[in-house]
């Protein structure tokens, strides 16, 4: 049984202007899980993420990291932020330095590593995420995809147990989006728990172990992609569309071309295979 790395218990948060952003979130995330969090803009995903490493404090409810409730003292927060890292949606809100090496080194040096140790770690991450080719460029000359990679390196270098990525592929062209997908897979392979918010149902179907649906500050549904994406009522409620692969599969089963007994296809290639074999 894997340990629970993140647990939220009846977490509520209201902004100063009275907007209720979170209305009692209950969640449990196990070590190494690949979690896709989906939901409309403004459904509370980003606010919830900021709660997971203590940047925001719930008005009521408790968040447990590694089975311990977050301790909001200086030392406690340092401990939590070392374990849970957030890659923000817009790199321009995260990258504060015009120099890539300086930018990446910020987090590690804050963890108290010496300059030498930090340097070694920064170099390793630069290598790992293929940043070498543009590491001497100032951040304002980098492309969106390059900035995103630096933003991920910022967090990865701190060696967290959980990495949260807030819509990592938004505003990227397909090539760079696939590159970021590759990096996300790389993170999972290293055993890091990845929590990712996305609007891309096809991607969530292929990648996630579990899909969690946010709606209006509540978790309205969760489960394996197969379960969640076959629940039409839930999808309608959260303004999501069923992945094309599933839609075609369902229709083909309905008209009798494919057999419902088949395992649910996740990728277009799998569905293709089914169709070819059925002829």
């Amino acid at each position: 049984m894997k340990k629970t790395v993140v647990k939220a218990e009846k977490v509520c948060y209201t902004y100063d202007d009275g907007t209720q952003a979170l209305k009692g979130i209950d969640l449990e995330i196990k070590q190494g899980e690949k979690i896709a969090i989906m939901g409309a803009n403004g459904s509370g995903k980003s606010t919830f993420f900021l709660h997971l490493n203590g940047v925001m404090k719930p008005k009521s409810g408790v968040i447990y990291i590694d089975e311990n409730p977050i301790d909001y003292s200086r030392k406690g927060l340092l401990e939590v932020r070392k374990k849970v890292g957030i890659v923000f949606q817009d790199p321009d809100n995260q990258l504060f330095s015009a120099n890539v090496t300086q930018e990446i080194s910020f987090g590690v040096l804050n963890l108290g590593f010496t300059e030498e140790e930090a340097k070694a770690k920064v170099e390793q991450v630069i290598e790992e995420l293929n940043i070498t080719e543009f590491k001497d460029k100032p951040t304002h000359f980098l492309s969106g995809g390059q900035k995103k990679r630096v933003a991920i390196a910022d967090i990865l270098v701190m060696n967290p147990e959980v990495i949260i990525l807030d819509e990592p592929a938004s505003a990227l062209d397909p090539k760079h989006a696939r590159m970021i997908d590759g990096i996300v897979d790389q993170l999972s392979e290293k055993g890091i728990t990845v929590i990712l918010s996305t609007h891309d149902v096809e991607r969530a179907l292929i990648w996630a172990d579990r899909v969690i649906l946010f709606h209006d500050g509540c978790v309205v549904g969760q489960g394996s992609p197969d379960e969640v994406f076959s629940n039409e009522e839930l999808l309608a409620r959260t303004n999501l569309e069923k992945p094309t692969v599933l839609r075609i599969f369902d229709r083909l089963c309905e008209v009798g071309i494919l057999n419902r007994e088949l395992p649910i296809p996740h990728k277009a290639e799998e569905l293709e295979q089914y169709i070819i074999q059925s002829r």
Partner: protein
Amino acid sequence: MMIIDKLAYSSQLRYKSPFLKSAFAVGTLLICVAARSFVVSGIVLILMGCLTVFYSRTSLSHYIKLMTAPFAFLALGTIAIAVNYTSAPMDLISIPVGSHYLAVSVTSLTYAIRLIVVSIASISCLYFLTLTTPLLDLLAVLRRMHCPWIIIELMMLIYRYIFVLLDMALAITTAQNCRLGNRDAKTAIQAMGLMLSVLLVRALNKSSLLFDAMESRCYDGEIRVLNESNPSSIKEKTGVILFLVALLVVSVVCKSNGGI
């Protein structure tokens, strides 16, 4: 500003030690200002001009264009020094104004010209530094010189966010232009006002988001980052020292020959 920044990054001297470049530029600047000599200023201007144009991939015409901006200020500023308002006429030009004269003497004119030449030469030293050294490298120099960290951190953040806000301002202006926001003077002023107010709100918003992002990386009030700089070789160091000593000797000689 953008162009200067781009040039600094593509300069061939970019990876030379910022300490060496600063010592060279500032040392030359100090000698040039202290000497107040036509000869020394001439040497400095020509040398710095050549080095900058040659190494920073600036074209000569562009360099001259960069120089004209401060030159205009200097020319205006020194008029007041060259022209005197006196009760007696002077040797070069005298224009009676009421009971007094607006007059220029040979001494005051020489003084003004000397001031312009020395200033232009000094500016060439600073241009050399800014066109070959990215700002962040200069910050490393300031840090080594024990400049207060708050100033360095502010410079670092301001430098980064100039570009972010500039992008935003351009995007807003383009969007306004697309909807004919700048079709005449009145709408242009209105559009500018709107753009600036939106920019302020977004800048404040961005600063709070940035703070959240820094907090998530354990920010505790002090920005600690790795500083890498390439050390200078003994050869380069000796070169710079020899040059500065030679320039010093030239200025002493000039001084003793009546300050030419």
